[in-house]
């Protein structure tokens, strides 16, 4: 066992570190409001700098402006960016998930047109999958694209939880193109203009904290050209799964964890009553045990990644542990501070508001447990009432059930 870099990796890390050391003064602050245009523009400029230095799209192929390196180098860059105390790229969703999907399923024209501006932060992207009535059961989406006689499409519907839509140029959108086949089959992926899209309305969705980090996006008779289809008509589900696979890679090996174990320990260590309180100590011990376990399981996963294995569904358990431990850590830190922790500028306040929603992000805990139970432990799936039934019929049944 060895947690050190190989000589080649160490050399790469050194190169990254040196660049960051020389340029970190040019970086904007790590945190800022996504509603603040000046801040977002500064983050775009910083992404461009990172891209030009080869620190964005590290694992993208060279022909599309990437570095053609592996996920290990991407992780190294994430770690070094975090260490330097500077923000990373602005468009994590585009570069981490949607770009790789375009590279895998897009046409040559799409790759040529979109990947460069995405990489350099000139055009930020958003992911338009979830809907008010389709989250855990993503294939139940209702946003409808109908093909016109000239081959173009007309899109109507609503998406939700859309991060970065406030300033996105484009989105990758999953729509239903054929309601008369079973639900996973009648889906198609589209590239949709957001900023300049006629009939597109972006509305901020305020969260517990009062900030609007994500949005609702409405589509009213939005016209899409035939060339907007990604991966073929009716193949939307497979294309979406590619995005979700890259999502696992992006979330699992992102540089930021939520809440700092060191800050929690400092808060308690600084309070003489707290540091001798057996309940506080037990909670602290349990939380740190969980967070440390996630860290070392991350190294185990990284070892497999280095050997060419893509993280499987078991990665969901790390998310469950991470979120629950972060909730427990924040509760403990705030309990030690008292009501003052709820003051908006207090370091615990933001996490208190942010974490409840994170439990549902990227897969709710019950859904992750279903997936892990079925795909890792091999337990049988729950019986389903929607298998093989055309989507339109399912919808009719739902309406009937509600009416009776």
């Amino acid at each position, binding site marked *: 066992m060895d947690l050190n870099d190989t000589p080649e990796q160490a050399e790469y890390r050194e190169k990254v570190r040196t660049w960051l050391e020389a340029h970190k003064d040019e970086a904007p602050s790590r945190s800022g409001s996504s509603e603040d245009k000046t801040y977002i523009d500064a983050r775009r400029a910083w992404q461009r700098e990172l891209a030009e230095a080869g620190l964005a799209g590290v694992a993208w192929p060279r022909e599309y402006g990437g570095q053609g390196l592996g996920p290990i180098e991407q992780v190294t860059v994430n770690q070094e960016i975090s260490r330097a105390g500077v923000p990373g790229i602005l468009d994590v969703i585009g570069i981490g998930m949607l770009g790789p999907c375009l590279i895998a399923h897009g046409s040559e024209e799409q790759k040529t047109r979109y990947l460069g501006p995405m990489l350099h932060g000139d055009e930020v992207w958003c992911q338009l999958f979830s809907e008010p009535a389709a989250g855990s059961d993503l294939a139940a989406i209702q946003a409808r694209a109908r093909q016109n006689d000239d081959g173009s499409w007309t899109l109507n519907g609503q998406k939700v939880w859309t991060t970065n839509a406030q300033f996105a140029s484009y989105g990758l959108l999953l729509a239903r193109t054929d309601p008369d086949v079973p639900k996973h089959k009648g889906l198609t992926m589209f590239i949709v203009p957001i900023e300049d899209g006629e009939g597109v309305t972006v509305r901020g969705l305020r969260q517990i904290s009062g900030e609007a980090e994500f949005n609702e996006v409405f589509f009213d008779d939005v016209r899409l050209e035939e060339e907007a289809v990604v991966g073929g008509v009716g193949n939307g589900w497979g294309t979406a799964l590619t995005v979700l696979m890259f999502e696992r890679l992006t979330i699992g090996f992102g540089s930021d964890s939520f809440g700092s174990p060191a800050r929690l320990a400092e808060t308690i260590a*600084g309070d003489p009553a707290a540091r001798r309180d057996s309940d506080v100590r037990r909670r602290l011990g349990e939380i740190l045990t969980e967070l*440390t376990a*996630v860290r070392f399981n991350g190294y*185990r996963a990284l070892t497999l990644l280095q050997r060419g294995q893509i993280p499987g569904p078991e990665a969901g358990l790390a998310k469950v542990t991470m979120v629950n431990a972060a909730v427990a850590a924040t509760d403990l830190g705030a309990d030690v501070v008292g009501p003052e922790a709820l003051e908006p500028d207090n370091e615990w306040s933001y996490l208190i508001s942010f974490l409840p929603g994170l439990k549902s992000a990227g897969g709710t805990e019950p859904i992750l447990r279903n997936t892990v139970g079925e795909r890792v432990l091999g337990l049988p799936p729950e019986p389903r009432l929607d298998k093989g039934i055309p989507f339109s019929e399912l919808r009719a049944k739902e309406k009937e059930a509600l009416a009776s």
Partner: protein
Amino acid sequence: MNLALSDEQVFLREAARGALSRHKTVEAARDALENPSALPDLYPMAVEAGWNGLLVDEDHGGAGLGVFDAMLVAEECGRVLAAVPLLGLVPATAILNAAGDESLPAVATGELRPVYLPARPPSELEQGWTVEPLSGLTRAEAPRASVDGDRVSLDGTVAFVPDAPGAALLVVIAESEDGSPIAAAVAADSDGVAVEPVMRYDATRSLGHVTLSGASGRLLDVGADVLADAWYVAQSLIAAESIGAVQTCLDTSVEYAKERFTFGRAIGSYQAIKHELTEVLRQLENSRGLEYYAGWARKDKPDEFPLAASAARSAAGHALDFAARSMINVHGGIGATWEHDAPLFFRRAQLSRRLLGGTHDATDRVAEESLSAAGA
């Protein structure tokens, strides 16, 4: 980045599994509940496999391996509830090896069987070295030592010492007159040594109350760091052993959840069962990550070993409690009877959580380590 087993470690694990498979250890665990003397002594098997000399340097006839290797063996023992005296042996050999003690060649051949008398290193809330008490939450003071040259005279009682019965050499940790901790090697058959065998609930775990009344021993040339290290080696081993037991609980429960049908479907298809079993898996995976951490830290980052070993013990202790209870839940009524193996794992969990300071003390040590790092 390489946090995985080496080929040699995979081989060691497979060899351990193979050696253990030749003994009906789970059946023995059940039989011994009614007749403790029926429990076969697996020490000769451990010697044959070379586990007694795992940590002993090659110069002294041992294998010169690391604590992580011993943990892999402990994990295999835990998987089948095998009564192999690793908890007593391995920390004892760690101390003897660090001291370069004269007993090492005999220890390495298996001729001389040592046992570690566990003593907990001081912490912010519990000053001084302490040992398990006979009963209650108040920990007992470590034995007192009066040192005269390389001879030590020892007085005190250490309760619930794993693997004490049958051991020939006691590795005792004691406090000298000036409060500093020392270690001494004491022949189990010397005057002033009494070992009272005890069985509590889990018949696979041989325990003993050890009383020293002016017992004479040989001073071991080791510092306090080695004595603290032995405590964390013991914590790592009980963690590893628990991880093995959790794996069996999970495998058995999953298999049953696929086969048992209610209301027309396998019970494993219900979320109530599925989510409980994924929770066992989650805790198992977390414990395993920490097992690797402890093994890595012992070798490459000794400063972090107390944290790593304590975190591994804490996680694995909770995991075993949870997994043993889940196994009973998933199996329904039969899981709570002697017809099934579940109670044997439950008994293991019940005793393990209360030995060597208890799971809760390991959790507190995790807090202690992070608070002292933060509050320096």
